[in-house]
């Protein structure tokens, strides 16, 4: 008779090295059901936001996530500018777009590297992170910081860029593009990766829509939604780029979407540098009247959604933040059930989950779990062994 076993992964997630608890019910090697527990590290940002002034909040929300630290403030700023009826100067909109797209490039490359490591392709990890580093450098010399750029403010931007810097960005982008092209070609042409990832942990169009998923994860299932295209903010309606979608919804397609999006982002940054007009970068907002507004922005992982209500005071009366992983993580249920344990690692990684996305309040961590668990090493080993078995099949003489 088949026996169901509970396989706990967490509360401190061994792969993502962040607090999240997956309970997998397995029958042999196959997952038959699962439960996710989150919020071991909820930081109370929504509550905290109510005690800040309007122009302090961007500094707070860029700390929701170190990687999406341009997207969160941007969504909030869109909402507040709507309440105040302010339009930021065109030049500052271009500056904002450049930082938002650089953020996407570095996030996608970071993800590609980690995903490579999870399945035992450490060369992919080294390459991806090597080509990501110049992006971080660009962000540093444009905004003054590798993370938490603080470049956008209500009504404009903080830091302008001169022609010399723009030239430097162009030169660095050429290098990044070359490297990313090499990486993309190597990944897409690799027979082992195709065997390992094609058909793995598929999410169908209907499931993706039902879970309300967003970002590259949903576009890989053929759902053509992207806030940059559907509800343009900044200058996305003034540059030429494409929404990347793929039809299959498996892990391989999620890789394809992210890698191809990187090139679209490079394209957008180049056009912004060419088209950016001279002029002011700050509209100097004086006050925010009572009102409410929603702002949403396409962060690297998907749509980040902010709702802001003002009662005419100095700060938000209510500020709701919904980060992309909050709607993407529950879809593990759709992608993991019926799959072998060795594929769970990559199914989880394929969504590019971010736990700071999912958590926003401080609670005590359960220290009372002395039982042996599947740790980081075990999970990575399982996943890497599966790749090795496939390698032997594809290259039997190796």
């Amino acid at each position, binding site marked *: 008779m088949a026996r169901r076993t509970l396989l706990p992964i967490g509360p401190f997630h061994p792969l993502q090295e962040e607090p999240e608890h997956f309970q997998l019910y397995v029958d042999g090697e196959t997952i038959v059901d699962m439960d996710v527990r*989150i*919020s071991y590290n*909820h930081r*109370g940002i*929504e*509550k905290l936001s109510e005690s800040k002034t309007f122009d302090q909040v961007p500094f707070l929300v860029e700390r929701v996530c170190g990687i999406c630290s341009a997207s969160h403030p941007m969504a909030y700023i869109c909402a507040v500018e*709507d309440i105040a*009826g302010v339009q930021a100067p065109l030049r500052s909109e271009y500056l904002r777009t450049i930082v938002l797209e650089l953020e996407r490039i570095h996030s996608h490359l970071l993800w590609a590297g980690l995903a490579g490591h999870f399945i035992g392709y450490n060369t992919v990890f080294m390459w991806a992170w090597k080509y990501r580093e110049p992006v971080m450098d660009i962000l540093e010399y444009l905004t003054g910081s590798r993370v938490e750029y603080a470049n956008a403010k209500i009504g404009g931007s903080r830091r302008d860029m001169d022609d010399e810097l723009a030239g430097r960005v162009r030169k660095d982008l050429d290098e990044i593009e070359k490297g990313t092209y090499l990486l993309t070609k190597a990944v897409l042409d690799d027979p082992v990766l195709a065997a390992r990832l094609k058909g793995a942990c598929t999410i169908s169009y209907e499931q993706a*829509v*039902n*879970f*309300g998923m*967003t970002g590259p994860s949903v576009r890989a299932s053929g*759902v*053509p*939604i992207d*806030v940059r*295209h*559907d*509800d*343009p903010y900044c200058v996305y*309606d003034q540059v030429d780029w494409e929404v990347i979608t793929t039809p299959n919804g498996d892990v391989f397609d999620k890789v394809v979407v992210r890698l191809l999006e990187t090139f679209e982002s490079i394209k957008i940054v180049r056009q912004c540098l060419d088209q950016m007009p001279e002029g002011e970068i700050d509209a100097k907002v004086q006050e925010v009247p009572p*009102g*409410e*507004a*929603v702002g*949403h922005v396409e962060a690297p992982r998907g*749509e980040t*959604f902010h*709702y802001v*209500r003002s009662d005419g005071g100095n700060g938000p009366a*209510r500020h*709701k933040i*919904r980060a992309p992983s*909050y*709607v993407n993580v*529950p879809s593990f249920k759709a992608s993991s059930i019926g799959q072998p344990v060795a594929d769970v690692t990559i199914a989880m990684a394929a969504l590019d989950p971010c736990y700071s996305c999912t958590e*926003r*309040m401080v*609670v*005590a961590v*359960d220290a009372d779990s002395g039982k042996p668990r599947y740790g980081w090493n075990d999970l990575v080993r399982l996943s890497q062994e599966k790749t090795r078995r496939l390698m032997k099949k594809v290259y039997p003489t190796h």
Partner: protein
Amino acid sequence: MKATEVVDAVVRKLGDSVLAVKRPEGLPRRAYVDVKAEDIVAVSRTMFADFHGRLATVSGVDVRDGAEILYHWCIERHTLDPPAEGEPPCVVVTVRALAPYPDLVIDSIVCVTEAANWIEREIHDLLGVSFTDHPDMRRLILADDWPEGVYPLRRDFDVAAFRRKEYGDE
């Protein structure tokens, strides 16, 4: 279909359930529709199935009479009547219903879309709203040892007093 026409169609289709409509000036792709709380499941079904809305999230706001529940629907996949070339397709329609004090009860819409599952649990934790017929109303956000009946996002929640009581802060 133009953005303003999408909002018109939504209001027309929701019919008698609608109490008020607010359309912010200069923002054609935003609308706020107040509906009767008892119709929320039917309204949500219309938004999800007829207009292909994506439930971006739900916000709960503590107001004087109860908890305002705001369902943010992004309508961006127009299968029958797509917008003209070059016109951005997304319209964010926020459907607002009131769960009145003292009970703060409203029907769950998880039966319409799975996207509502976690966020209804979150609002239950943080604001104390009960969602009738939710399939799994366990705690999501608050810790297991968080006291019952204390809701941190309510207006009357006093952080300093709470810390004094629970953690012995000076």
